């Protein structure tokens, strides 16, 4: 009986061995986040501080520029992620519709996916900055009559430049995240709905889209969290005031005064909290999908 048990145990521990490296890395990730958040509470053992204080958070929330930054970041990321979701659904549906070949997907999805955000900033600056191609075109058409009349993409408080960068990147990302499942769902149930008399548009809205809801929600949350917490784009294109949260946090983080570091971490804590809400929703979606998988069996 003994050898049998040895095999059973070996079989049982296999999954734990397989997940160990991931757990270590994710552990480091969580440690980093928690450590940052704790520094916001004034706990910095490496400096001999271990007392928990809410001072930094209170101070942070009382500063007017932080509230403005928070609003600005939320505005940018919500606008970008909602528009990216809509655009992504359309793109994904269009790809499904024309039964896009691999090469087609490569161009429409892979090129944006593989282009860094910073490069996209460069694109948009070349196109829309005061002396960019687009204002030149408008000038040539006689719509504007001088440099600088066109609303600047760099430093504009409206943030449309930032949003545009995110859209250029994330619409294809949403499509990438959902196109496979949408093609699958569409060929399986969409066609069935159409043979039952639903128009193709109706079958899309009443069958295909609801069945992709999980994937769409997840893609939305990922885009939201990313555009909320990313540093590069708002740093390059954002206005001097209000600064996006990550930009503000890093600015304080760089300050040699250790108090500012805690202040930076308090800002990070606020960002982490908002993203945790997104993560919670993500978790609920996962749970729901799991239940549905179970009933499928």
């Amino acid at each position, binding site marked *: 009986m003994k050898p049998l048990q040895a095999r059973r145990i070996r079989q049982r521990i296999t999954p734990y061995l397989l*997940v160990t490296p991931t757990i270590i890395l994710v552990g480091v990730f969580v440690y980093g986040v928690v450590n940052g958040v704790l*520094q916001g509470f004034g706990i910095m053992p490496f400096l001999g501080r271990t007392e928990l204080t809410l001072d930094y958070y209170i101070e942070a929330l009382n500063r007017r520029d932080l509230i403005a930054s928070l609003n600005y970041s939320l505005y940018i990321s919500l606008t970008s992620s909602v528009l990216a979701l809509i655009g992504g659904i359309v793109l994904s549906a269009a790809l499904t519709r024309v039964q896009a070949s691999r090469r087609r997907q490569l161009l429409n999805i892979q090129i944006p996916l593989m282009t860094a955000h910073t490069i*996209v900033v*460069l694109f948009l600056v*070349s196109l829309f900055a005061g002396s960019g191609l687009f204002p030149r075109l408008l000038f040539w058409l006689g719509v504007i009559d001088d440099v600088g009349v066109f609303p600047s993409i760099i430093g504009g408080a409206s943030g449309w430049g930032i949003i545009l960068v995110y859209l250029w990147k994330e619409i294809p990302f949403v499509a990438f995240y959902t196109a496979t499942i949408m093609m699958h769902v569409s060929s399986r149930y969409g066609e069935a709905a159409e043979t039952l008399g639903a128009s193709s548009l109706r079958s899309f809205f009443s069958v295909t889209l609801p069945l992709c809801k999980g994937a769409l929600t997840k893609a939305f949350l990922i885009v939201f969290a990313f555009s909320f917490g990313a540093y590069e784009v708002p740093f390059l*294109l954002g206005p001097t005031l209000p600064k996006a949260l990550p930009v503000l946090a890093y600015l304080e983080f760089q300050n040699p005064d250790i108090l500012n570091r805690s202040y930076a971490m308090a800002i990070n804590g606020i960002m982490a909290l908002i993203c945790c809400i997104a993560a919670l929703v993500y978790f609920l979606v996962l749970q729901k999908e799991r239940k549905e998988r179970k009933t499928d069996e």
Partner: protein
Amino acid sequence: MNEGKQIAEDSNSPQRGHAAHKQLLKKHRRSHAWVSGFFLIVHLLCILMPLGIIVTWSFTASWPWPELLPQEFSSRGLVELFSPRQGLGLVLGQSVGIALGTALLSTVIATCAARALAFHDFFGKELFRFASVLPFLIPSTVFAMGIQVLFIRAGLANTVLGVILAHTIVSLPYAIAIMGEVTIAAGMRLEQQARVLGASPLRTCLHVQVPQLLPGILSAASMVYIISFSQYFLTLLIGGGAVKTLATVMFPFLTSGDRTIASAYGLVFLLATLVVFFLFELLLKRFANREVSYFEG
């Protein structure tokens, strides 16, 4: 062979009705397909036009407002970039090295995690599934500022290894998502078959699993490569000034006045990602085509 023919004939008759039905559906679909096609073309233009402008700018010597076309071309941008003074070759080599290292590490770890999620039942599986996507949802800026102290104390800050490790952590969710899909699609069938025919776990992995998962492995690796190659903030914080990558070196130039230099950087950056991306695609075609058609067919 007689029996092969028999099968072909047998399977033909019941499918004929089905095929006719499909034909009808296709016709019906095609009538609306041009809308989607048009949309895709517009989207494609939005993707490709900025690329064209970057290429143009990087070879432009003079393009005064409000001309629609550059007035003078030169290779000044690229020449200056690759002048020995800049040391760009080294930076490029380091960027590619870091990205390849990250791709390797992340893909291997993700393959293990995906396997555990696909085939094993273990304690805390759903929590693990959730934890593995956390880096998707909590901004890497928060993580980067929080983990810096740990990396400094562990001697990983300002080292290539530290940067690879940090990049692996944030790219892991992408790799796990891609590997998860292909692992489930591949299933245990061939693996079990190999084992009962006398293949040890190691040789099963070599002769069966790796060839079978190759498409997924390559696409996960290329995705991670691009993510790592594009990292700015994380590289900046973990690598300090010591680890220079193209993304960090290029950053200050992006919104600077010298559009030619900025575009030249952008061009080099794009080429570096494109070359590796198409290398992966080529490998995929070369080694994985047979399997892909088999598993899809």
